[in-house]
């Protein structure tokens, strides 16, 4: 038993320490949804096929139908004439309806949903103990407990836990039911800032380690940008676009809550507490996170979140500026910004999209045009 635990621990640790894109190939699944629903003012019209791998954020304003869609996928609500298939398996089609308990989904609800009459350990094992005999067990309890750091909580009653701890247990419990798909309904919404930071890294860890695709409902772009690989944008009961997160961030609908871009950069060293990063052929330097172990440095992929208003453009490279991160980019388009005096300039950096918020006056003064090569000065970056 001890050796099993140690084995599990080592196994688990290897996975955790692997950087994002080097993890075991994630499963790609396809979710097909046909759903048409009208309830008074509210209507939902969906006919989409969504590829799911890694973390997919279902993003939109409150009341746009995100939770309704998630509950229909889970089978918690049954809508007439809906059609829901995961890969080739129909979950709902015509008269056929696979009940919730036979769908291999894990669900985490918005508020704490631990069963109050069970201890943390019993909660964790509730789904695990009910697995069908033929289900392949890929995640063992020891593994999940270690992954989510739940050991000190096991014997407690749910009533004595903080919001963040409860959500972590709910997450572990869902994982142990060996789901094909994890559905997260605003799992962070009821948490304060402190508790959020207790659970965000675990969500990333799960995505990296387990390869189980996740569908995350959120109305906070901040959370989405920290976590998601893909984004499904919903508005007024429809899916208006979906695709990889960096490309989706260029959607003008998202500019209202602060236009931003996401770059994936590969790190290859750390000098004087400055992280050396490369995006394609170009180099960046950023202050390394405080806890970085410079002695045992290992390369990994970072997400760089850059606000559109933190990018300035110039026609020639600037040598007399304090901004040290300067990247050569080309202009691919212009988008309207929320403010009438401003424009969002769409850029590409070795195939990765980037956008800068400039005044219309500046765009005219510099004579910016599509396909033009310019230099982007990046004033601030959030390292995720």
């Amino acid at each position, binding site marked *: 038993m001890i050796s099993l635990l140690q084995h599990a621990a080592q196994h688990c640790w290897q996975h955790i320490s692997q950087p994002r894109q080097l993890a075991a190939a994630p499963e790609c699944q396809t979710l097909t949804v046909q759903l048409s629903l009208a309830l008074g003012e509210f209507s939902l019209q969906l006919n989409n096929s969504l590829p799911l791998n890694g973390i997919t954020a279902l993003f939109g304003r409150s009341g746009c139908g995100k939770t309704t869609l998630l509950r229909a996928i*889970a*089978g*918690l609500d049954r809508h007439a004439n809906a059609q829901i298939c995961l890969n080739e398996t129909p979950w709902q089609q015509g008269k056929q309806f696979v*009940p*919730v*308990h*036979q769908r291999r*989904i*894990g*669900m985490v*609800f918005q508020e704490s*949903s631990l*069963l*109050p*009459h069970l201890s943390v350990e019993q909660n964790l094992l*509730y*789904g695990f103990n*009910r*697995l*069908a005999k033929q289900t392949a067990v890929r995640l063992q309890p020891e593994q999940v407990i270690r992954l989510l750091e739940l050991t000190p909580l096991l014997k407690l009653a749910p*009533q004595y836990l903080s919001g963040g701890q409860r959500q972590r247990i709910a997450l572990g*419990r*869902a994982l142990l*039911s060996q789901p094909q798909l994890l559905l997260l309904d605003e799992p962070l919404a009821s948490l304060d800032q402190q508790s959020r930071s207790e659970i965000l890294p675990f969500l990333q860890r799960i995505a990296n380690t387990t390869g189980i695709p996740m569908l995350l409902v959120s109305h906070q772009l901040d959370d989405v940008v920290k976590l998601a690989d893909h984004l499904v944008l919903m508005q007024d009961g429809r899916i208006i676009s979906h695709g990889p997160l960096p490309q989706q961030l260029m959607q003008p609908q998202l500019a209202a809550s602060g236009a931003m871009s996401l770059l994936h950069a590969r790190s290859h060293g750390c000098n004087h507490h400055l992280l050396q990063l490369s995006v394609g052929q170009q180099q960046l330097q950023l202050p390394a996170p405080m806890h970085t172990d410079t002695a045992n440095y290992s390369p990994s992929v970072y997400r760089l979140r850059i606000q559109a208003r933190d990018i300035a453009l110039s026609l020639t490279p600037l040598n007399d500026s304090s901004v040290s991160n300067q990247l050569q980019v080309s202009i691919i388009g212009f988008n309207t910004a929320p403010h009438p005096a401003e424009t969002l300039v769409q850029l590409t950096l070795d195939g990765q999209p980037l956008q800068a918020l400039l005044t219309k006056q500046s765009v005219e003064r510099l004579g910016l045009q599509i396909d033009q090569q310019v230099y982007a000065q990046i004033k601030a970056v959030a390292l995720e």
Partner: protein
Amino acid sequence: MPEFLTILSSQDWQAIQLTLKLCLYTTLILLLLGTPLAWWLSLSHSKLRTAIQAIVALPLVLPPTVLGFYLLLLLGPHGAIGSTLEQLGLNHLAFSFSGILIGSVIYSLPFTVQPLVESFRRMGPRPLEVAATLGASKLDQLFSVILPLCRGGFIVAATLTFAHTLGEFGVILMLGGSIPGETQVLSVLIYDHTEAMNYAQAHQLSLGLLITAFAVLFIVYGLNRRFEREAIL
């Protein structure tokens, strides 16, 4: 045996036995019938619910004699149910134990259903949704979630039903009369003793019932307090 018990006649003992049997059967039947009914009432949004709610609550306001009267008409030899039974070669149900059992099931229905509806509502749908997403079937949910979470509601429902049946009088007198060993329960026997001026015997049984009823209600309210505390935690 203490003196108090030795002076109970065999007729008294028979009535005590019969009363306990009636209370027990009524409680078991009502838990079986009342649970699905209460479940439906706690979830349904249909217009029918209001009507069913009113019907379930009727015994709370209706004089037991009215209920007993209609049951007598229905279950007696000329009633729809009674005459059908006779045609099938069975006996009609007036003045029989089965008859008063049906009467007390209807009469105590609100005392089972209302605490259950209350506790199902307090639990809400979420724990069951959680259990379902974790692979629990409906039956599994009943035993692993509903029963433990609504334990308080079930205990309160069962004790109230039991205690209420203990105090039943009007319906039984109308429908069952006073046949020793068949329909002569404690409350009816006390009435008979009083009519016959046997005040001492009436007093013993009355005092016994009084103490039992108090004890049962004391336990119910005690449990209620405990479950409320648990619910707050």
